[in-house]
């Protein structure tokens, strides 16, 4: 049975309030999810008053500002700050996205920042993505081509190459998978949009020779068919990709591929 409520140890309490010390007139309240593994306490929401006059345009800049100037104990993942690495994926005001490319000017009212939904929290905004990456490994995301010699180039027509557009750009930030209610309830078995998009990327690659095996492997009621076209994945994807469509294409291939 699906558990809609949060378990007892995950219920969120009200946390600390950090008042602005700069005396700025341009203040925004930022509510951030906090949990410290060294205490046995429940997670809480800390509120920070942030001076927006001296803050660059993205949500990640706010987090950096909080960490540098207000509260150095805040923990979050970030690396490239240009929407390429996928580290700073988090839930920003009710929608998953990359903090580094989400402008805070597009958010009305207070800014709420949570970790990616329905993950075991490691600390503050850091969710545990081990399960997702294990599933990613299970689809064997590498080229399988036994007949060609390793030293030679495997040619691909422009048309075949174009099939990979919209699939190879994925940065595995997990915004889509953790936005999917189906993945929330069946994350242990359902592969989820991110991994299925990658499965599709290898299935349609003209250079790959194990297309049928790949299709057979993914053709499972729980692994694939838990997609109910809720489309939270597509609306969450910070790279503008369409995992839901890729899943539909896999379903179509399974009907037509005769395996």
């Amino acid at each position, binding site marked *: 049975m699906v558990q809609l409520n949060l378990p007892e140890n995950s219920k969120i309490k009200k946390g600390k309030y950090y008042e602005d010390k700069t005396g700025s007139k341009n203040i925004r309240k930022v509510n951030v999810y906090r949990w410290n593994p060294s205490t046995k306490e429940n997670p809480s929401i800390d509120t920070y008053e942030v001076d927006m006059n001296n803050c660059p345009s993205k949500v990640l800049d706010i987090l950096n500002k909080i960490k540098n100037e207000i509260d150095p104990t805040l923990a979050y993942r970030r690396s490239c700050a240009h929407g390429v690495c996928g580290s700073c994926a988090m839930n920003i005001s009710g929608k998953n996205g990359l903090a580094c490319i989400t402008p805070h000017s597009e958010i009305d009212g207070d800014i709420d920042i949570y970790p990616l939904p329905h993950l*075991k929290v490691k600390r503050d905004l850091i969710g545990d993505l081990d399960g997702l990456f294990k599933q990613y490994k299970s689809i064997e995301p590498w080229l399988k081509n036994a007949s060609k010699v390793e030293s030679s180039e495997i040619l691909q027509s422009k048309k075949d190459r174009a099939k990979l557009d919209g699939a190879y750009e994925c940065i595995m930030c997990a915004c889509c998978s953790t936005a999917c209610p189906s993945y929330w309830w069946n994350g242990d078995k359902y592969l989820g949009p991110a991994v299925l998009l990658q499965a599709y990327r290898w299935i349609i690659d003209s250079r790959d020779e194990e297309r049928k095996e790949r299709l057979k492997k993914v053709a499972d009621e729980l692994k694939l068919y838990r997609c109910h076209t809720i489309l939270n994945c597509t609306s969450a994807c910070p790279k503008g990709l369409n995992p839901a469509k890729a899943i539909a294409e896999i379903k179509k291939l399974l009907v037509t591929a005769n395996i």
Partner: protein
Amino acid sequence: MENNNPLSPHLQIYRWHISSLVSISHRFTGIINFFAIILICLWVSLIFLGESYYTFFNLFLNSFFGKFVVLGLSWSFSFQILSEIRQLIMDLGYGFELNTSKVTGLIVIFGSFILTILLYLVGKNFI
């Protein structure tokens, strides 16, 4: 070792979109329709038991609550049908673009109410 770390909030914080709303309503109306069909079967079986039972059931259906139930079921059938058509189109691989799915979702939501009104008018012999 069991992981006792807290679970990050999900349903509690995630914003609703048109497509997620249509998806959950599709399932919800599906469950309602399951019970609705039981009700219809019951109604039909009552005819076999004799006229008095049938008129008693009619009395229920003509009461305020009965009318509410019938209208509600008309809506849930309408919604299910429209949403299923949208789903069929998606199974063919179309309509996954964000704006398209938003528009088709809105058509399903508003269409279900329009269809309910049409059914009501047909039932009342207005059309």
